[in-house]
């Protein structure tokens, strides 16, 4: 598919003299956007963001990029303003603007505001803009495009500011409750619970955090034979008899941004992408495989990241309401003091499984874009030392992501099954209510 660029700047350059149009090729190439996304992911990993916060770092830059990129085919793409909560109409570009360049710039500008290691974005942006200049980008086009990118970015950032993130930073911490049924910090770091007030964050498409609550968790009951106890034993038993494939699946979908290792006084951290980051990786694979254009690529990222963002809020709402204790806590307390889950238990309540909710919401969105019959080879985790895995569809991948939490020893079956349902509803709601095409 060829994309329809605004021809005006090209004409202008042509008119000047011996036009060097190599930069246009660079800008037209969707890999340009893919590379910027990858850079954002790398910084998210480096800076260490928790999964819900990482979903926020992904969503706003992609929305900003989309709100620019849609102008490449105004007849095809609809604005998200009016569709996302509180987002007012975004600016429109002038004639000289190269839409893709402006879109990238908006992406990088918003991204820079949300991550910590700003110089890592600056270095990337400067090198990239220099490359464009070296490949004939006229300074007028550059300045107009960056200015427009900036304009949209600042519109988005102003809107971002109202999402309650800043306020929730200093909300009271969770006071651990002593009753057995309730969540407690887990080994090895016994970190305090992550984002107990994430439900206060403004949802983008959902009416509220609690629009699609899962069915309540099983009643806490440690008597042998109770459904709850049986599910606990399932985690324990599976953990002891994992086969190679199950182990591989659990590790593949670990997606824990910060796993700490203790060797006596020595401590190490291994950092990986978050669950949301993994689905951004799948989006990259899908857009490449479908040979999506620059703007289609941006659209896919924007839609998927919005689904992830709302799904995290929905899931976190439930987590900090039901406050379900992690299997590791109960198993160490009652069954086996030395039992360790295959994966390090993440620092927040158990129910529902975050990966189950957000994977399903992302899969529903990607299926809506690329269809159900979309097999792909998931190489997202290769650079983190893991294998690649093949999936017949996005749904297939999301099913595996969900069950991986049981193999990993960090979730009961109820959190997986009900989490998938929750994600399905969130995903469907977003597909239904968010339209990028006219």
């Amino acid at each position, binding site marked *: 598919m060829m994309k329809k660029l605004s021809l005006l700047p090209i004409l202008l350059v042509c008119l000047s003299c011996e036009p060097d149009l190599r930069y246009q090729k660079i800008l037209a190439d969707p890999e340009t956007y893919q590379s910027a996304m990858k850079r954002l992911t790398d910084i998210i990993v480096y800076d260490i963001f928790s999964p819900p916060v990482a979903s926020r770092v992904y969503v706003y830059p992609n929305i900003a990029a989309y709100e620019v990129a849609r102008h490449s085919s105004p007849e095809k793409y609809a604005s998200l303003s009016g569709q996302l909560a509180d987002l007012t109409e975004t600016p429109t570009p002038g004639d000289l603007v190269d839409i893709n360049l402006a879109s990238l710039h908006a992406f990088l500008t918003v991204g820079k505001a949300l991550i910590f290691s700003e110089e890592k974005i600056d270095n990337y942006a400067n090198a990239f803009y220099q490359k464009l200049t070296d490949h004939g980008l006229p300074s007028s086009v550059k300045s107009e495009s960056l200015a427009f990118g900036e304009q949209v970015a600042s519109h988005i950032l102003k809107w971002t500011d109202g999402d309650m993130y800043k306020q929730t930073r200093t909300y009271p911490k969770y006071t651990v409750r002593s009753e057995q049924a309730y969540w407690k910090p887990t080994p090895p770091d016994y970190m305090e619970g992550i984002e107990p007030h994430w439900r206060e964050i403004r949802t983008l498409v959902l009416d509220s955090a609690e629009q699609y609550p899962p069915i309540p968790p099983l009643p806490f009951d440690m008597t042998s034979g109770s459904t709850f106890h049986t599910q606990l034993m399932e985690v324990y038993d599976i953990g002891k008899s994992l086969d190679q494939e199950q182990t591989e699946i659990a590790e593949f979908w670990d997606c824990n941004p910060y*796993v700490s290792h203790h060797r*006596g006084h020595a401590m190490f951290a291994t950092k990986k992408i978050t669950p949301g980051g993994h689905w951004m990786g799948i989006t990259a694979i899908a857009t490449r495989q479908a040979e999506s254009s620059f703007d289609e690529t941006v659209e896919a990222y924007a839609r998927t990241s919005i689904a992830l963002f709302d799904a995290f809020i929905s899931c976190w709402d439930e987590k900090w309401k039901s406050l379900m204790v992690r299997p590791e806590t109960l198993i160490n307390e009652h069954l086996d003091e030395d039992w360790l889950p295959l994966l390090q238990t993440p620092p927040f309540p158990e129910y529902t499984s975050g990966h189950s909710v957000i994977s399903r919401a992302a899969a529903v969105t990607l299926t809506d874009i690329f269809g159900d019959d979309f097999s792909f080879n998931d190489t997202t985790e290769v650079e983190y030392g893991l294998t690649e895995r093949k999936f017949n569809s996005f749904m297939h991948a999301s099913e595996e992501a969900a069950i991986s939490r049981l193999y990993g020893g960090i979730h009961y079956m109820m959190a997986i099954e009900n989490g998938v349902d929750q994600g399905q509803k969130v995903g469907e709601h977003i597909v239904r209510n968010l339209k990028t095409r006219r």
Partner: protein
Amino acid sequence: MQRSILSNWMFLLVGGLLLTSCIGDKRFSKLSASKTGIAFTNELKATADLNIINYLYFFNGGGVGAGDLNGDGLQDLVFVSNQGENAVYLNKGELKFQGISYVLGIDNREMKWSTGIAIAVVNGDGRLDLYISEVGSYLKIEGENKLFINTGNDKEGIPIFEEQAKKYGLDLVGFGTQAVFFDYDLDNDLDMYMLNHSVHSNGTFKRSDIRTESHPLAGDRLMRNDGERFTDVTSKSGIYNSALGYGLGIGISDVNQDGWPDIYVGNDFHENDYLYLNQGDGTFKESLGEMIKHTSRFSMGNDLADINNDGLIDILSLDMLPRDYEKLKSSAGEDPYDIYQYKLKYGYHDQHSRNTLQLNRGNGKFSEIGLSAGVSATDWSWSGLMADFDLDGFNDMFIANGIIGRTNDLDYINFISNEVNQQRLAGDLTEKDLSLTNKMPVVEVPNYAFRNNRELGFESVSMAWGFEQKSFSNGAVYVDLDNDGDLEIVTNNINEPAFIFKNNTRERVPEAHFLTVRFEGPPSNPWGVGARVELTLSDDSNLVRELFPVRGYQSTQPHELYFGLDSLTKADLKVTWPDGRVEKLSNVESDQTIYLSYTKAKADVIENSEAQLHPFQESWEMGFEHKENNFIEFHRESLIPGMLSAEGPAFAQGDVNEDGLIDYFFGGAKNQPSYFYLQLPGKKFEIKKLDDDIRYEDVSAVFVDHDKDGDLDLVIGSGGNEFSGESPFSELRLYQNVSGTFFRDTSAIESIFLNTSIVAPADYDLDGDFDLFVGARSVPWKYGFVPESYFLKNENGVFQKDQELTAQFGKILGMVTDAKWAHIDGNRKPDLVVASDWSTIKVVYQDNDGFSLTNLMGSEGLWNCVEVGDFDADGKLDIVAGNLGSNSKLAVSDGEILRLYVNDFDDNGSVEQIMVIEKEGREELFTTKDELVKQLNFIKKKYVDYASFAQAHLHEILPPEKLNAAIKYEVRDTRSSIFFQEHNGDFSRIPLANEAQFSSIQAINVRDFNFDGLPDIMAAGNYSRASIQRGKYDASYGEVLMNWTNREMKYIPNATHGLYLDGEIRHLAFTNIDRTNALIVVKNDAPVQVFRFGL
């Protein structure tokens, strides 16, 4: 031109000369290997098979031993090499040594790991043997501990050794750290305690009850000497030998003066240190929790010796707290609040990651005074040795430290180590991966020396004493290598030749005298291990030393005792041998080595010492137990220096039912009723609950007859810092006394709402009835904002807000903690003395012109309580006030400033409290970066890594305009003090005795204890709700200060008066129960305790 060159040369020449003489002038000079002949280096080589990642103690280094191996009267040296060959050096005199390592045979194992060295007569033949600990059976290391029996000298006078561990049953296989040979059963032979460490390296901590499960390799061992062999008697000895035992330090001493040697074990990580009291029946009882309030956390080496010459043995235990601010801010520090509580719940003791110095207060009680003594932070520290290096009669300190890889560097953990991925960590490391461990920051630092200032403090003299060289020093000994009476220091270093520091004291200060004591013991303990020597000097000072040569870290000190006598040349000496035999010598001349022989000692005649009568006797619990509710303020105001929610209970006394017996009121914490204890004859009480109002946290109460109907009514103020605004639970309440029963009466008091600290009654308007001052402690949710205090005027039995006074003073008295009406200026109108947090001691004077406020100049402090008394008997009232004390990370005096900035620094509607300590012009943040980032998210973006945060100055980290606009508090002296009123009405401040500065003072009682007509002081306190970074304030046992005239208030040792108060004391009240004088001690979160008082 030429002239100038010449003069430059001259300058260099002179400078060079000065420099040389400077080095010679220092107390110690480091001798070169070429001079001493000691070239031993503990070479460490990381391999894929063994490195810091698969063996957590890879950087822990080796020990040193000193002992006269060939009996020539000179101390020889043994060095342990972790991986290479151990080394033996014979002392040839004049600080020259001959290497004779070959006497240990050839060790050609490919892999071994040796750690500590014990030198002792193991087989009773009179010659010193060597026992070297090893790590056995771990990864590819196979090994067992080695016992080198000294078989005597060859013709050249060189001692020859034979390895015979198996023969004696000492071929132990385990994770060895250090063995100690001492006579625990007092049968005159040497038994052995084997300290092992653990290699468990998962970060999880389990319930501490696995402490009782034996572990074959990590568990410690007690081996009884049965003549030919040693028998493992661990299992019934009361010694823990579990995988939790990360034993790195061990020391022996009779800490409770019962004649039986006790054991202190320092454990790394979350496991408690152990203090095993010898029960005298072959068993030990681990008693640390009853004797010591908190310990170091990552405990390493330790030493047990007397620092204040009171004859009681004190304990130094080392940790790894950086002294340097930047290093501190980039290292992992204390646990977050919740995790700390978790560990307590799991059965672990209070532990803080800093060096601890436990001062023995007698009666089996210790006060941890490392912070006020100035020795709490010496970086990654291994050996701590207490000995008298300057021969002034007081034990000084030497600390050997340094680590090749600072594994707790936060940038390393968070940003660098990620390059080693999980798979490689879990599996095998390759040589290539090892390069990643090389990226750990290095802590190569000078060793520390501290001079005892004779006032329970230590002065850092590292540079002045010549310890400027950076190193990784582990094991260390003090030893008089040249027999001149002063102590050389020897350290075993990683990747650098051992240090020999010659002590120049005797050369520089010939008038500093010494006495060295050697022993000729009973046959099976010929070197006299366990002997205790007490010197009494002509100035009445008492110097006590015990011969337990294993001290410090993985090392053995010589089998002789060293005494510095300062300028004195004679001493009376008493030696007590382990079995209790005693010999006394009078007028022993100084400057010699004296030999004490067991054969000359006789069974001790117990002197008929009069049973000492303590004024405080027979304590009992009255019944009321205050139970603090679990409200964690740090969860909503995480940057506050400490929680304000545990400042109760309220207490009041008075005869409420007019039966002639004093009755008591105790305020409950939130969710606990308040109680009346109505006294009946015979130590009995009728107990009445104030049932209805259990949501109130009652922190202050007074009995006053507000309506002049002849009975005592009750006014209660509640605090807790939980409810804000006009919450019903922060309303001041009045209860009418109706025939001994109390009913709340809202009509007799105007509705005022505050987080109360104090209700203070007085007839301040002199109209014949009681009025009130009600002090406000804080604004809940907004610590640091100034709350409004109130004056209430009694109008015909109804308390009404005194609009005028409240308007005038209500908002300028600060965060009030205590107040007292008194006639400070001597006129007939009562004045109000106010203590407040982060502010001055204030006096609201009242004279004919009205009221006026005076801040006592320079008195900015963290005041908790205030009392008055005419201590100097000049007819003018003086003020005594309880402050934070000196034993705190926040303690300041002498030009340092503790500062608090309060503002909403990120405009998100919540208030941040930024605490800094200004030292040498730099404002050092108290909070960690992680704590700060949680409140001020923008900091994380500004400083992604820890190093840049650590380097940044306060005004770079926080917006200067926000700092300028902040509410700002400054404190310049945190010592509890008396303010003596001069004739002109000014006040002169004199801090209370050092012992009264060990903790936060929260209750003071002024009373003439010795009936000399002068008021004395009893002060008590403690505070356990400070932030974890600050730690627990628990070193006070209640201090009695006797008025010695001349404005001196003299500390009376607790052992003398017999009062030992545990816990957090909020009120000390003298009363009369069962027609006897009694002291009531009211504590937070603990039962009320009563002491009978009198002789």
